[in-house]
């Protein structure tokens, strides 16, 4: 029988969707039975008490968790988040209920052996409750007590080749799409750079010195499966410089109905025969395509790499061969000033593992220096860019203004000339000026 009555939570189970309440009840029962005979290191009724405190929060309409804490593992300023219940007598099982963030592998590729080891460790030293994965991308282990933290960290770092993730005013655990391991659209090896920069920037990941959180995310192509453009302070999106490769025979195959558009993704009902003009050419956002005389043509100069045509006809159209990535800066979720998407900072940069991605590090590090010096406490990079201006970001990174930095010419330009950049400076001969311009 359940330790606490939870009528409000029970109601949540009545909907059509799988319920986390059912999952928690199942875990509570499993811990109570303890069929594996584990010497459980935290209270056996931790999950019952979690359900109890959640029920009470629903009843009161307010949280019963305290904010933050000093706990962690030695030398790390992130990876562990202290959580304490403000009703410890009523719910002793969750009096200490700390969260542990664990760095996920690049592309989230796991072996079942690893997952089993991780879950065994968490059943033994934690609540058994996991969140696979948190919004940033890490594995989140929810609920343990302070004495278990170093034990968990030792086991992970010594026997599982596993590090903690980022939290607090740190570089957060970098995240990426599956990239070239399974996706033909990927313009660079997202997993390699994600792993490389995670190792390279260990100090930034574990020892907080930033004004606030900072996120990297790596998307192999502009389809942006990781949504880096919306979710990361620095977003790396694969792109290419040269032409989309066109296989005209395969284009004819789509037009003739030999191949299903979108890989057959819209096969749920009969949408009629594939119409290349209506479904591809007319939907090109820049109008850079035409289909004439059974030949598809693309004006690369006007193409913005939106990926629509490639997604519809992947057998016929392939990304170019001169690949790299674009870097966008300043995306964030709403806390101050609402949500922001990333602004394009570097239209194209090589992604070169042979020199340890130096060209990309040359962009990252000056941005950090500028933000660390100029950013206010709890100010995200995107907010600093908004406060001081995009031009200041260009100055800090030494990047020359280019037309791609300007969203709409002549309306709200980011870029202003300085006197030293203009031939002759600001001084002018008024008489000379009046020759051509009457009052």
């Amino acid at each position, binding site marked *: 029988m359940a330790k606490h009555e939870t009528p409000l939570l029970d109601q949540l189970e009545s909907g059509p969707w799988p319920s986390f309440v059912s999952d928690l009840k199942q875990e509570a029962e499993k811990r109570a039975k303890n069929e594996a005979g584990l010497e459980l290191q935290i209270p056996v009724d931790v999950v019952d008490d979690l359900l109890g405190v959640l029920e009470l929060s629903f009843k009161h309409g307010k949280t019963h968790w305290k904010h933050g*804490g000093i706990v962690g593992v030695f030398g790390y300023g*992130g990876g562990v*988040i202290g959580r*304490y219940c403000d009703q410890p007598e009523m719910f002793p099982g969750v009096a200490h209920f700390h969260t542990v963030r664990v760095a996920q592998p690049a592309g989230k590729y796991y072996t079942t052996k690893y997952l089993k080891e991780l879950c065994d460790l968490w059943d033994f030293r934690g609540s058994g409750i996991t969140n696979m994965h948190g919004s940033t991308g890490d594995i989140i282990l929810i609920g343990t007590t302070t004495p278990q933290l170093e034990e968990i960290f030792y086991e992970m770092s010594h026997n599982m080749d596993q590090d903690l993730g980022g939290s*607090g005013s*740190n570089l957060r655990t970098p995240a990426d799409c599956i990239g070239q391991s399974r996706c033909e659209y990927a313009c660079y090896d997202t997993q390699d750079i994600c792993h490389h920069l995670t190792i390279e920037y260990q100090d930034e990941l574990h020892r907080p*010195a930033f004004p*606030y959180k900072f996120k990297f995310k790596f998307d192999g192509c502009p389809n942006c499966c990781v949504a880096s453009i919306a979710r990361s302070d620095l977003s790396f999106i694969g792109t290419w410089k040269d032409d989309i490769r066109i296989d005209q025979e395969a284009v004819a195959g789509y037009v003739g109905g030999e191949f299903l558009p979108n890989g057959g993704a819209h096969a749920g009902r009969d949408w009629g025969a594939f119409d290349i003009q209506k479904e591809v050419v007319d939907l090109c956002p820049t109008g850079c395509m035409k289909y004439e005389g059974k030949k598809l043509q693309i004006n690369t100069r006007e193409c913005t790499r939106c990926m629509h045509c490639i997604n519809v006809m992947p057998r016929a159209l392939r990304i170019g061969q001169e690949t790299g990535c674009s870097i966008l800066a300043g995306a964030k979720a709403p806390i101050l000033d609402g949500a922001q998407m990333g602004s394009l900072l570097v239209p194209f940069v090589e992604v070169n593992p042979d020199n340890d991605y130096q060209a990309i590090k040359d962009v990252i590090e000056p941005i950090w220096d500028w933000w660390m010096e100029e950013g206010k406490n*709890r100010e995200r990079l995107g907010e600093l860019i908004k406060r001081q201006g995009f031009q200041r970001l260009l100055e800090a990174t030494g990047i020359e203004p280019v037309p791609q930095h300007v969203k709409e010419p002549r309306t709200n330009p980011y870029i202003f000339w300085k006197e030293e950049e203009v031939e002759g400076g600001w001084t002018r001969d008024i008489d000379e000026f009046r020759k051509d311009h009457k009052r």
Partner: protein
Amino acid sequence: MEQEEAAEKIIEALKKKLKTKSKFYFNDLAKILEMKPRPAKKFITQMVVDCQLEYWSSGSTSMYGLPGTGKQAAAEHED
């Protein structure tokens, strides 16, 4: 600046403010040292290793404090 001198400066400044404040942002500490963030970080990190400072985290923001100070330590039975 030597590590010992930096530590003394920070501990003295933090003790002075203890009546009103027990947790400090990284930038507050860099200002005490009158240094840019990167060189200041080396001293501050070493102070954590030497147990002269401790981290505090809300989960989203990190701060620093003198060990055992503030409500947190007593409230959480970690002292």
